[in-house]
C-alpha cells in the first residue's frame, strides 16, 4: 500500500509522521504549484471551489508518482467539502486511474473511535500504536502552528526582507523530520530564537491585521498567494484566526470554541451555517473588539458560507468602525491585482490610525 493525501498547510508533515509511524509507505503529493492547479482545474467542475481543484491536482500528481491509495476526509454537510471525495473519486475513475480511496467522515465526539475506524483500513496495525504516533504527529502540528504564529508577528519587523522566510522554512523542514519530542522542542525553540534575532525594526505606526475566512485558504499559502508574507513584508503584523490544530480539536470534540463563536456572532449570525461562515463572522467581531486595525477575509470563489459571511461582515465593519476587505480566490486570480489591493488597504489603515491619533 502506497498512501497519499491532499496538501493543506502543515497537514503533510502530520500525516507523513503518522503513517510512517505505523509502517505504512507514504507518497507525499508534490508541493502545490501552478502545474498542480492547472491539472486540477482541467478535470474539475467549473464552479467547484479552489481547494477542490488543488486537491484533485494533488491526487493526480501523487498517483503519477506511484501512490495507490488516497486518504480523504468527508463530512456531513452543509458545506460541500463533505462530498468532495465522492466526486473526485468518480473523476479519477473516469480518467482511468487504478487506486483505492478511503474517505473518512469526521468523528462524532470521540477521537478514539475515529482512530479505531481508521486502523480498520490497515489490518495489522493496532490502534494503540496508531494513537501513540498520532499524539506525536499532533505535537508536531502544534509546534509548527506556534512557530508560524511567531513568524507572522516577527516577520513584520525583519531587518532584511526575505531572510525570516528562509529561516522559517528551514526550521519547519526540521520539525517535519524530528524523531522525538525532545528533538522537536529543541528545533522549535531554536527556530523562534533565530526569527527573533532578525526582527529589530520598530515603527511609530504599527498595523495589526486579523485574517479571517475559509480554513483551506487560510492554511495553504499557495491558494492565497502567500498573503501573510505579502502583508508582513508591507510591515503589517498578521494574526491568522484558524490553524490546523484548532480545526482538529474543534472537529474532534464538542467544543467551547463553538460557544465562544456563537457569543461573538450574536446579533449578526445566529447559527452555524456550515464551512467556516460562523467563525468568520465571530472572528471579525472578536478582533474588532481587540482593537485590530483591519480585517481581511479570504475564501474560495463560490464558497456559499463565506458569501453569507461576507454580506454580514460588511455591516460589522460599519458598526465597529473597522475596515474590512474581502478577497475571493480562483484559478484566474492574478497576483498583481491582489498585491495592489493589499497596498491600498495598508494605506487606508495607516491613514485611519494617524487620524485617530490626532
Amino acid at each position: 500500500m502506497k498512501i497519499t493525501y491532499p496538501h493543506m498547510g502543515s497537514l503533510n508533515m502530520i500525516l507523513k509522521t503518522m503513517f510512517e509511524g505505523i509502517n505504512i509507505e507514504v507518497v507525499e503529493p508534490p508541493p502545490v504549484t501552478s502545474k498542480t492547479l492547472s491539472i486540477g482545474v482541467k478535470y474539475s467542475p467549473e464552479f467547484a471551489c479552489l481547494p477542490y481543484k488543488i486537491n484533485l491536482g494533488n491526487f493526480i500528481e501523487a498517483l503519477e508518482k506511484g501512490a495507490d491509495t488516497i486518504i480523504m476526509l468527508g463530512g456531513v454537510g452543509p458545506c460541500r467539502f463533505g462530498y468532495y471525495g465522492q466526486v473526485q473519486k468518480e473523476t479519477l475513475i473516469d480518467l482511468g486511474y487504478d487506486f483505492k480511496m478511503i474517505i473518512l467522515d469526521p468523528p462524532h465526539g470521540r477521537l478514539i473511535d475515529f482512530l479505531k475506524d481508521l486502523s480498520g483500513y490497515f489490518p495489522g496495525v493496532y490502534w494503540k500504536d496508531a494513537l501513540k504516533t498520532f499524539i506525536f504527529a499532533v505535537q508536531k502540528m502544534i509546534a509548527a502552528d506556534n512557530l508560524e504564529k511567531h513568524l507572522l508577528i516577527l516577520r513584520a519587523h525583519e531587518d532584511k526582507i526575505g531572510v525570516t522566510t528562509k529561516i522559517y522554512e528551514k526550521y519547519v523542514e526540521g520539525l517535519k523530520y524530528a524523531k522525538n519530542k525532545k528533538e522537536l522542542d529543541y528545533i522549535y525553540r531554536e527556530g523562534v530564537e533565530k526569527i527573533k534575532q532578525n526582527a529589530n525594526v520598530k515603527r511609530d505606526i504599527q498595523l495589526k491585521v486579523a485574517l479571517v475566512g475559509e480554513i483551506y485558504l487560510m492554511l495553504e499559502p499557495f491558494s492565497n498567494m502567500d498573503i501573510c508574507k505579502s502583508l508582513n513584508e508591507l510591515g503589517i503584523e498578521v494574526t491568522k484566526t484558524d490553524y490546523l490544530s484548532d480545526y482538529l480539536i474543534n472537529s474532534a470534540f464538542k467544543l467551547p470554541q463553538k460557544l465562544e463563536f456563537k457569543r461573538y456572532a450574536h446579533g449578526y449570525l445566529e447559527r452555524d451555517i456550515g464551512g467556516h461562515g460562523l467563525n468568520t463572522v465571530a472572528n471579525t467581531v472578536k478582533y474588532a473588539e481587540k482593537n485590530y486595525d483591519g480585517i481581511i477575509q479570504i475564501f474560495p470563489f463560490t464558497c456559499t458560507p463565506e458569501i453569507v459571511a461576507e454580506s454580514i461582515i460588511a455591516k460589522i465593519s460599519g458598526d465597529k468602525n473597522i475596515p474590512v476587505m474581502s478577497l475571493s480566490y480562483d484559478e484566474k486570480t492574478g497576483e498583481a491585482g491582489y498585491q495592489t489591493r493589499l497596498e491600498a488597504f495598508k494605506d487606508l489603515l495607516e491613514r485611519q490610525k494617524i487620524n485617530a491619533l490626532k
Partner: protein
Amino acid sequence: MGKIVGIPKALLYYNFYPMWKTFFEELGAEVITSSNTCKKIVDDGVKSCVDETCLPVKTFVGHVIDLKEKGVDYIFIPRVVSIEKRRYLCSKFLGLPDLVKNLVTDLPEIIDMKIDYYRGDDTMKKEILKVGKIFVNNSKKIYDAYLKSIEMQKKFESIMRKGLSNTEAIKAIEENSVDVKLNGNLKIALLAHSYDIMDDYICMGIIDRLRNMGANVFTTCMLDRDKIELGASKLQKDLFWTYGRDILGAGKYFIENRDIDGVISVSAFGCGPDSLTDDLLERDYKRDGKIPYMSLTIDEHTGEAGITTRLEAFIDLLRWRKGEITI
C-alpha cells in the same frame, strides 16, 4: 382585518407557500406576497448584495425590498435549516434572515422562524408556538393552524405529482382551476432547484417554452417520492442536501428507467452545491451514453435569445434521435 404578513415570492416560496399562507391565515393574519419578479426587483437585489451572491438570493432580497415598500407589518423569512431528518438545505438558507437583516435597512419586523427537522425531534413545537403567539395567545389554536398547514402542504404536493409545476399548483389551490396543456410527445426531465426554474422572469418561463416546443416536462416535485428514493439509493454515500439529493435521485432513476427522452439541468451561476451534484449526474449520463443531457447556467445577465437557442437545439436533437426530423 389582522396584521399583514408579507411572503417574498422567491426561494422556498415555490416549495411551501400554500402551507405558510394557511398557517398565518388560520391565526387571523392577512397574507400578501411580493409582486412578480421584474427588472426593478432584480436590480434592487443586485444592488444590495455582494457580487458573488447567487441570483436566487439576490432576487429574494429584491422581493424583501418590494414587501418593505408595500408597507407590510411583518416579513416572513424563515431560517430553513432542515426539512427532513439528517439532511440540510444549502448554507444560504441557514443564514438567510441574518443575511437579509444585515443587507437591508429599516425593515418591518422579520418573522425568522427556525424550521429544523434535522434531528427529527419536537424542537419545531417551540418554534411554532413562538411564532403563533405573535398573533394569538392560544396554544390549541396555534397547533390547529399548524396541522391545517401540513394538510395543505400534502394537498399542494399531490397536485404537483399530477404534472403541474409549483406555480401552477399554487394557482390551482388559490383559484380552484387551472388550465395546463400536457400533450407533448417528448418527455424531458428538468432537474433543478424550484427557485431556479419556477420564476418566469429569471428563467424566462422555461417550462412553458419547453411545452410549447412539444415537450412534457418533469421536475423533481412532479415525481413520486419512491422513484426519487430508488434513484438516490444508488448513491455511494447519501447526499446531505435535500434538494440536491432529489435532483440526483431523479437523475439516477431516469438512467435506469429510461422513460425519458432528455435531461436538462439548470443551475445558478456559481452555485456551490450544484457544482458537485451536476458533475456527478453529467458523469453518469456520459458513462451511460443513452440519454442526452444538457446543463444551463443562469444569472442576472442571462439573455433570452441564448436560452431559446439552446432549448431549440436540444429539442431538435431529441427529435432527430426519434427519427422525427432528418438533417
